[in-house]
């Protein structure tokens, strides 16, 4: 354990040190202006550094500023408060989870169609790739408006955008996974005259499990990105994306960073949850420890 933790801590410390130094450097010009205006000259370096780490709207907030913003905006607030990042995190999380569920279902369905039908294999794959080259942020507002005009608002449009991003890794992974059984494993079932359904459930599906989980890990992280992007185009209802946006429009850099870190934490937790599900399934499937 220790030989895993120590390197990570070392690197984290290095990053922190670099960050504090960068904060001094990047916030210095503005601090100079402030000090000049307040007729403060020859500020000792230690004091100057402390000043740059305590600006209201710094170019680069110091780590402790971000941490205290996160603390103030989560633990220190009622969870139902609209200022609470926990509240906004929950909104984003629910869109993420719904979008992830849609995306995984769609991805698996497409993969099944692709491996079972030559025509869909040939016709779908290039367009699925092309679909991912469309800048999602560009169509997100139109999707929100379009769905709004047919009465779908709130969670669903966000979830659909997150689905649009997250189905892709699932299709790609599952097509690979469902095709991963070797010829000999398929031949074996043929000698038993197994039907298509049996081939799917007894061979292809279990063989695809590792691929499914690998792509779900990518997919859930991307789902979160999708939800954030959708919120950038739809300020109503809140969410971490909205906090990023309003933070950006009000020059509230500390707020931006805090929202980013909460999003990062969410992503890490979600990936970890999928990872433990994977471990559990692996155990049930008797994989090597």
């Amino acid at each position, binding site marked *: 354990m220790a030989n895993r933790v120590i390197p990570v801590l070392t690197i984290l410390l290095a990053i922190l040190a670099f960050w504090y130094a960068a904060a001094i450097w990047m916030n210095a010009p503005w601090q100079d202006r402030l000090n000049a205006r307040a007729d403060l000259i020859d500020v000792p370096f230690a004091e100057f550094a402390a000043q740059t780490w305590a600006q209201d709207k710094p170019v680069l907030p110091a780590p402790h500023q971000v941490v205290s913003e996160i603390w103030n905006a989560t633990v220190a607030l009622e969870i139902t408060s609209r200022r609470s990042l926990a509240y906004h995190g929950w909104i984003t999380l629910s869109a993420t989870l719904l979008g992830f569920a849609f995306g995984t279902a769609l991805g698996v369905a497409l993969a099944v169609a692709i491996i079972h039908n030559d025509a869909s294999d040939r016709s779908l794959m290039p367009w699925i790739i092309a679909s991912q080259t469309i800048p999602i942020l560009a169509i997100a507002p139109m999707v929100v408006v379009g769905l709004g005009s047919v009465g779908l608002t709130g969670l669903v449009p966000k979830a659909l955008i997150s689905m649009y991003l997250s189905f892709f890794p699932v299709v790609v992974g599952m097509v690979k996974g469902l095709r991963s059984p070797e010829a000999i494993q398929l031949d074996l079932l043929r000698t038993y005259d197994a039907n298509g359904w049996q081939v799917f459930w007894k061979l292809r599906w279990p063989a695809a499990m590792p691929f499914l989980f690998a792509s779900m890990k990518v997919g859930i992280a991307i789902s979160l990105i999708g939800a954030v992007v959708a919120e950038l185009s739809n*300020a*109503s209802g*809140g969410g971490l994306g909205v906090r990023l946006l309003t933070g950006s*429009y*009000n020059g509230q850099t500390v707020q931006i960073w805090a929202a980013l870190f909460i999003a990062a934490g969410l992503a890490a937790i979600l990936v970890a949850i999928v990872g433990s599900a994977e471990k559990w399934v692996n155990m049930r499937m008797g994989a090597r420890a």
Partner: protein
Amino acid sequence: QDALTLQLKWVTQAQFAGYLVAESKGFYDEENLDVTILPGGPNIAPEQVIAGGGADIIVTWMAAGMAARESGVPLVNIAQPFKRSGLMMICPEETGITEVADFPGHTLGVWFFGNEYPFFAWMNKEGIPTDGSEGGVNVLQQSFDIQPMIQGQADCISVMTYNEYGQALDAGYGPDNLTIFNYTDMGNDLLEDGLYVMEDTLDDPAKVDAYTRFVKASMKGWAYALENPEEAAEIVVEMDDTGAAEYEHQLYMVGEVTKLVDAADPALDMDTYDRTVQALLDQEIITATPEGAYTSVVTDALK
């Protein structure tokens, strides 16, 4: 109760205090209206929302409304509570800009997304090219804050009196170290936050009646906000879903916005209207003088 949906032009803030107060204080209920207020944002075009049927009434700038009318969304102005523009361009004194003639060769920050028309109309009037050619200005798509000025990425930036200008004041800028170009004072203002509806709905007397009651209640809201700025600011903060609105800032904004709004008279001022249309035509933002782009049935009914 008649259900109406209002699409705001921007995020929930005191710029829309009248509507938010009217909703919060129950003025709409008194008029037997069930109003839903949808906040906007940087990627939401109210014109697109109303064209898709997502709203009944929108708040937008006349330039954007007229441009939309030409691209096939028949919007009609039914009321114009904002009489003046809050738009300004500010230049820190370090840039050495003191008058319009100093502009060429400098970088100016401009908001797009339908907010760029007044600027281009102004430059057009001054004869300053904006296409990057010799003797012209460089135009930058500016973020909705004052960072470009603080970081020196733009020499002059766009601000609203009631919003970003406040941020500039907070940051230690002020009239003594800024050159300020106020669009209204220069006579270059184009009509801002008006209320627009789809043309075909005006054929329905019941709808017109609902609009009339809506405008009436909204103006009551504006009047209330004018008299009780603190309470109005609190209401705005309370109604902001995102939790980003700060009381101090909203209080400042209420104070500034109420200078632009005439709470007693929502009618469209024809002089400003004509000037706006002319500027849009000059700038080729629209190609023909619009017909039927406004109606006074609503405001007349209130008289």
